[in-house]
């Protein structure tokens, strides 16, 4: 019995050492028949999935470090551009506001003098109680066209032009009258080239 146990032990030891050597010589996956079948199945599966899309992988290669810096620079540039855009928009709005104010002030100052200066922007002075600023501007423009100052100037000018004309006529008339009386006095200084005047007609009468 002891001998049999000894033989069995020796055989097992031989098996162990032999299998250990076999493990060294062969790839690890071939150690068990079932593992070999699994390896074949996995081999086929890996080949099958080889070109299938992978979750977020195999993107175009890029050297790290550089893209991070580039993206940081791009972000800074975008932020800077956005700030610049905001500044430009604010400046444009401010300029438009000032321009409208200046335009309104200029119109009010030229046409309506001192009274339009303060009230001209809103038109309240011109509009009275119901005026809004837009309506005021409209009324101011209307006033510019038809109001007292602009409208008055042409008509006033016409009137003024008429007055000097009238005055001239009057002067001329009086002058004629004056001329008529002068020869009547028999003044020898009267030139013979003055027939239009009434002098000679009256002169002989007066001289007779």
């Amino acid at each position, binding site marked *: 019995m002891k001998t049999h146990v000894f033989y*069995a032990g020796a055989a097992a030891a031989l098996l162990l050492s032999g*299998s250990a050597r076999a493990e060294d010589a062969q790839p690890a996956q071939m150690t068990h028949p*079932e*593992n070999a079948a699994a390896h074949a*199945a996995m081999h086929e599966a890996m080949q099958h*999935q080889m070109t299938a899309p992978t979750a977020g992988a*195999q993107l175009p*290669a890029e050297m790290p470090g550089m893209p991070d810096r580039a993206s940081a620079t791009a972000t800074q540039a975008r932020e800077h551009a956005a700030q610049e855009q905001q500044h430009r928009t604010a400046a444009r709005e401010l300029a438009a506001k000032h321009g409208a104010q200046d335009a309104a002030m200029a119109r009010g100052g030229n046409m309506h003098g001192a009274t339009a200066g303060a009230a001209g922007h809103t038109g309240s002075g011109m509009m009275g109680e119901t005026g809004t600023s837009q309506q005021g501007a409209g009324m101011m423009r209307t006033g510019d066209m038809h109001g007292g100052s602009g409208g008055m100037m042409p008509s006033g000018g016409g009137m003024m032009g008429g007055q000097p004309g009238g005055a001239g006529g009057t002067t001329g008339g009086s002058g004629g009258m004056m001329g008529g009386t002068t020869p009547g006095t028999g003044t020898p200084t009267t030139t013979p080239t003055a027939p239009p005047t009434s002098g000679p007609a009256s002169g002989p009468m007066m001289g007779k």
Partner: protein
Amino acid sequence: MIARALLTLSALAVSAGPAAGEHLLAGAGAFRDGKFDAALVEFRVAEKLGAPEAGAYAGAALVKLGRAEEAVEAFASSPPGDDELLDWYRAVACYDAKLYGCAERALAGLARAGPKVAAEVTRLRGEIARVLSPQPAPASVDWYLARCEARYGEGRAALAAAYCREAAELGGRRPDHHGVARANAALARVVPASLPGSKR
């Protein structure tokens, strides 16, 4: 009877046993069906049960799941050169982790691969050559060094070593050898920790 018991014992000592094989088979089936998360679980179980190849299979599943750094760690436990397909997945893991030198080494070993693999190898090597052709910037070397130190700090020594090797290689291609001394010093610390059985 004793002999039979001894024979059974010796058979168990030789391989991971049928249980591991079943999990490997289940994992392979799930992998083929595109169920990579299920495949990963099966391979992890098989690995625990002692199937040595299960680590690399888990690496392949991790590649398909887009978990490149974990895949690099999984492949670190098995040497390249045993299986062309596994080496392909190893290369993709390195590539996706931006370890282009590591990927190039793995792909170079696939020169005599079949036509399907060879086409993919050519495509990927072209991408790598494009990235590696200019002189590496110091910022790039520093990025790998920072990764190395960060991963070492997380206790992932194998991954840290891969990043440090990459930093040393890239720095060595610069005239000023930027970062090479630092990378080598880090490797001297990291590599012993990355060896199997060592614990940090």
